[in-house]
């Protein structure tokens, strides 16, 4: 008998504790909503492996929505941003976007940074005919999900072509490639780069592979060094690039390293041994955003962002801001919150003055805009050059 009583207590306690905790959580996330507000849905990686991406973007998006409301809203109605965390997981991204559309009745969806999560959520938006604008997913396949899916950044094939043109212009004719074999971004980047540099008249002299999580890259780097390249393309993420650079210098590979927007992080330089370390003087391509750009939209955004959040915005925050502002602009022109009308208004966007450059959406719903080449100098990324699509013949 005593056992049964004990067990009953146990079950009671556990369920009480769980309901208590569950209850607390629910209350915090859902609030009331007013009928006259226009609901804008956002899904972002606020927690998980790429939490910094999601939080940065969210700040930019929130700022654009707040700005629009401060200016009186859209067509007399206020905007309300409902943000859902996808924990950096594609399957959860799909779930929360479904919820945003079916339950919150969001008129449009903003997100995501990582292409895998944008690709998971895009079919849902397409199915419900709710426009989705990705601020910074660069994989070309993202907007292939359908005619309701847009992005305000360039694509990886453009970015890779920019880096190839830059390498060629710098006089790097023989380039070695060191790519992350398990990462779609890295593999596609390397392939597009190789195609473009061959077209220009350069060559890829050696190719080696690594994987995220490897601790030792020296064996491959030695083989790359033996090919005596003018430069080495490392289209990976910042988390590996620093280590690769240090080990490259250790094995005597002194050629400059080249990369893409995956390098953009305050952790890049610490990973390479600090300012003046192994990455000093290396180059990478990035979105058209830097505190060094003197354009007025950029400078006023920098000041306003700093004032609101007391930190400097990065490119992801700027792209989030642009995605939300482009949506608000389209909403005004559409004069309606119906999906098809909104979609047509977004698709008609031309020369929109974004803080990450002028945005014109092309027939494939991608933004045509310039890219920057940044150089690592000390612990700063300095603007070295910029390329427009026209300059590289695209």
């Amino acid at each position: 008998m005593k056992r049964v009583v004990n067990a009953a207590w146990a079950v009671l306690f556990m369920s009480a504790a769980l309901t208590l905790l569950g209850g607390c959580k629910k209350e915090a996330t859902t609030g009331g909503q007013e009928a006259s507000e226009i609901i804008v849905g956002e899904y972002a990686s606020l927690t998980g492996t790429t939490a910094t991406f999601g939080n940065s973007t969210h700040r930019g998006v929130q700022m654009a929505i707040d700005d629009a409301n401060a200016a009186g809203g859209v067509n007399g109605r206020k905007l309300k941003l409902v943000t859902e965390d996808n924990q950096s997981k594609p399957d959860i991204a799909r779930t929360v976007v479904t919820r945003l559309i079916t339950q919150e009745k969001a008129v449009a969806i903003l997100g995501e940074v990582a292409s895998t999560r944008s690709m998971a959520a895009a079919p849902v938006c397409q199915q419900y005919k709710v426009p989705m604008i990705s601020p910074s997913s660069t994989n070309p396949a993202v907007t292939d999900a359908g005619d309701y899916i847009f992005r305000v950044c360039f694509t990886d094939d453009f970015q890779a072509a920019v880096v190839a043109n830059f390498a060629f212009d710098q006089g790097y004719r023989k380039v070695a490639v060191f790519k992350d074999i398990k990462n779609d971004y890295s593999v596609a980047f390397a392939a597009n780069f190789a195609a473009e540099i061959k077209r220009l008249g350069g060559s890829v002299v050696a190719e080696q592979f690594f994987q995220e999580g490897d601790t030792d890259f020296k064996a491959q780097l030695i083989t790359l060094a033996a090919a005596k390249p003018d430069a080495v393309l490392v289209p990976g993420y910042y988390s590996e690039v620093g280590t690769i650079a240090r080990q490259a210098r250790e094995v005597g590979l002194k050629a400059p390293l080249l990369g893409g927007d995956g390098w953009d992080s305050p952790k890049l330089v610490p990973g390479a041994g600090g300012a003046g370390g192994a990455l000093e003087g290396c180059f990478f391509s990035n979105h058209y955003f830097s505190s060094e750009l003197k354009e007025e939209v950029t400078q006023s955004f920098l000041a306003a962002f700093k004032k609101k959040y007391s930190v400097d915005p990065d490119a992801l925050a700027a792209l989030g801001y642009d995605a939300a502002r482009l949506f608000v602009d389209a909403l005004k022109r559409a004069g309606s919150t119906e999906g098809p009308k909104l979609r047509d208004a977004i698709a008609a966007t031309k020369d929109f003055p974004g803080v990450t450059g002028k945005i014109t959406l092309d027939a494939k719903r991608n933004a045509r805009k310039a890219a920057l080449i940044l150089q690592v100098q000390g612990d700063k990324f300095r603007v070295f050059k910029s390329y427009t699509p026209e300059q590289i013949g695209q």
Partner: protein
Amino acid sequence: MQSFLQQAVFGIQLGSLYALIAIGYTLVYGVLRLINFAHGDVFMVGAFVCYYACTRWLPFRDLSADPSAATSNIALAALVLVMAMCVCAALGVLIERFAYRPLRNGLGVADAHFWGLVAALPFALSMGKLTQVVPLAAWLAIGVIFGYTLRPVVRWIARRSVRTTSRLNALITAIGVSFVLEYGGLLVVGADPNFVPNVVPEKVYQLPGGVRIGTAQLAILAVALLLMAILRYIVVYTRRGKAMRAIAHDIEAAKLMGIDTDRVISFTFALGGALAGAGGALVAALTHVKITPLFGLLPGIKAFVAAVLGGPGSIPGAVLGGLLMGVAEAFVAGSQYSAFRDAIAFCILIVLLLVRPAGLLGRHVAEKV
């Protein structure tokens, strides 16, 4: 030829690290016939101890600003190594005490409360940081409630089944502990990669034959060799070591001979943990790799393969297996087929186990049924 020698040097350095971790697997397998899957995560904890010691806990001085700091930094680096070994030895003991021992001896009061507190941690953390009063109080309260309820529940559920010490249960528990360490780590330190700053001066020496070898590699090799020598001394020449070997031979007979098996098993986990901790600290500080809570996964698996390759339970076998794997990996990684570097370990394993089913130096013991 030059790059052949150079790859061999890298391979030996990599292999000595695998060997350090593999010894931990093999020691535990020797005494308990248990594959301690959490061992790779102990290695990860060693790397994190090194990271925090180098960035926060110890007064390292910035080398780039003040080159004269080298001597004091090297002394501190030795201290970091000892710290990582101590923390990981303690962690090894803790894992054995609360995860594996209850499987052998039944769930005690302390075990129940320990796991109650672990299970309560996510709830408390969802309320705020543990340094605040409310989440701390909630953690303790929920943990104790869980602790009190766990034993009756376990007993009630298990009332009709006969308790057996199944190897499979221990294996599943090991995988569980591994997940607790990995995802608990994500909860506490986050997924952002961390890098250990340059704390000791590094130099690269040019050897005859065009081979380059850095101080970092020399240090890894030297420390690994020293630790293996100490381990060999402990296992072969001390009473504790003799007891370990006795338990490895036959645990029941060892008990009958008056050996306190629980204590010796604890000691074995401490030894394995210390070696893994040293490996983690060496990798974190000297190869400049990024450290995340999932950092121990791949090295852990490779070291496990090394242990099986050498013959589980055999310490020289683990060292040999580790070196073999490291060298093979370096050669594959340096060839045109670098994408295949992780697969090569398993190919070697499969071929070798066909020829020598008990591993390179393992002895095949017929099991009585």
